[in-house]
């Protein structure tokens, strides 16, 4: 903490040392959850490939070779080649980079804005809450994909626009969740205690409220990332998201659609990675939820 810390920060050092073991314990328990292990094992190789794509010897994802059109998967071209003789693996990895960036950026943006506006709405109540909640209710009346498509209709297609569009779709959901989390925390006795010793509002928010909402918000961030990737792929598939020559899983799948019957690999290989990533992110969210929320037990399947 800085020099501007309030008197209530006395004992900060003690609580910090006490908090360390449970955190280590939580990390261990997180990694022991089988769903989380599965999820990470599926996501990690794809994410690493996408992340380090520029350094890896995949070659140019847009390099076409008209002598090598529609080659089925082989050792030379693991995912085959497309109608222009481009290597589908190179395109899929390059497209995955874009898709993952869009998903993570949109989820991060909506969860961050959601934490701020949801906390403000729940903590200050009255007209602040009615204004924010009213806007949230209006936006929630539109299915996510529809918001994305409308935003592209207004501002055009492209990576930035798609991130913006998907963030607009998820932010109201994040605000609503954060609002209900903060409302739940507000009723705790330690909140009354904090108010009784006249703790400053900002200190209550930063020290008591927001940290307690972070783990559920991180869980939904994982789900939002999966859904953002799926919405981006759907939009790009319809030609209204990320447009060629920038590859994304959606537009590679669209490229292969006319040749689906004979050259299924052009569409289905990137589709497979898309599904794997979405499942992995859902598994990570499920596993994390099991560990972070001890009250929620999923009976049956472990």
């Amino acid at each position, binding site marked *: 903490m800085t020099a501007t810390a309030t008197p209530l920060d006395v004992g900060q050092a003690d609580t910090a040392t006490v908090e360390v073991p449970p955190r280590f314990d939580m990390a261990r328990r997180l990694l022991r959850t089988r769903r989380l292990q599965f999820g990470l094992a599926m996501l990690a190789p794809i994410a690493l490939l996408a992340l380090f794509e520029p350094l890896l010897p995949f070659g140019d994802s847009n390099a076409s070779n008209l002598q090598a059109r529609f080659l089925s998967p082989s050792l030379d071209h693991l995912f085959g080649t497309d109608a222009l003789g481009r290597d589908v693996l190179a395109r899929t990895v390059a497209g995955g980079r874009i898709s993952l960036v869009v998903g993570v950026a949109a989820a991060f943006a909506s969860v961050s804005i959601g934490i701020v506006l949801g906390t403000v709405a729940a903590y200050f109540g009255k007209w602040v809450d009615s204004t924010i909640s009213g806007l949230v209710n209006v936006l929630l009346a539109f*299915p996510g994909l*529809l918001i994305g*498509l409308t935003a592209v*209709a207004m501002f055009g297609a492209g990576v930035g626009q798609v991130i913006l569009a998907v963030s607009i779709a998820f932010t109201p959901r994040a605000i609503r969740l954060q609002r209900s989390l903060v409302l739940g925390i507000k009723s705790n006795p330690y909140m009354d205690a904090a108010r009784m010793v006249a703790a400053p509002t900002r200190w209550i928010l930063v020290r008591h409220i927001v940290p307690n909402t972070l783990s559920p918000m991180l869980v939904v961030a994982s789900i939002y990332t999966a859904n953002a990737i799926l919405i981006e792929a759907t939009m790009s598939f319809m030609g209204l998201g990320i447009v060629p020559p920038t590859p994304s899983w959606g537009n590679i799948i669209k490229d292969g659609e006319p040749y*689906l019957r004979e050259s299924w690999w052009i569409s289905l290989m990137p*589709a497979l990675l898309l599904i794997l990533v979405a499942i992995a992110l859902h598994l990570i969210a499920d596993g994390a939820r099991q560990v972070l929320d001890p009250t929620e037990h999923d009976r049956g399947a472990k």
Partner: protein
Amino acid sequence: MGGSYVLRRLYHLVPTLLGVITLTFLVVRLLPGDPALYILGENSTQASVDALRDQLNLGEPLPSAWLSYMGSLLTGDLGESIAYRVPVSEILSSVLPVTVAIATSALILGTILGVTIGAVAAHLASRGRAGLDHALTSTSIVLEGTPPFVVALIAMLFFVLRLEWFPAVGVIDWGDVGGVVERLAMPVGVLAIGEVATIGRITRTSTLDSLGNDYVRTARALGESSVSALTHHGLRNSLLPVITMVGLSFGRLLGGTIVIEVIFSLPGMGSTLIDGIVGRDYPVIQALVLVYALLYVFVNLLTDVLYRLADPRVEL
């Protein structure tokens, strides 16, 4: 009693509906630069830009343009399509039935299958036979990560292109029932699969919860068979979260109809919306976005009312 609850809910919807209408109104207003010029493109003549500006009320100040937009909506006037030069309401009356037909069939089919599979899985799991339960859980995890358009492509590859069981294209003639069923079977099936996964998982979890209740154990102890304990005591209570889930998942289902209509070239709201976006036909976009939102709000109202009807503990 029930009626007054519906009226109260409708009353609470008014601000949301006003907001929804205002947002769709702003779709044209917030276009970058001069909306009329943006729609027609740089090479258009000044006269056509002026005509469009008149048609879209762009010359009016915002509040009075908003009022006239509200006024025309109340009289059922949704504006005129720029591309086709016909009233949007005319286009809507031909595409709305297609979308409503596939969305409701998929919703009903998916809910029935999902509730059945979920209840059977929970029942078997409670008796120690968890095979179906594991299969359902893993299938639903896979399906939740698979967007409808990929399911559609795979279904298309196998059932249309390889096996040639269903026609891929063709007009929809509502008089020809067999033809309509044949034409809509694949799109509806693809959309329903996603619902089955979601609804099945919720039904399974909530049935397992209610099977653990004391009154179910009592019923079993009094000699009721496990199937009758499930159908009489377990299932009814476990349907409440299912109803909520049906409403919540309807938004995704509606989104799914858009891409499904495009893939199976069905003349519904979705394919019209995509054509509208590509052709910058903003009156059409505006009207369709509004109708999608109204459908979504209406189905959620309906599920709320159903919830109150199914749960007598909640006062109407």
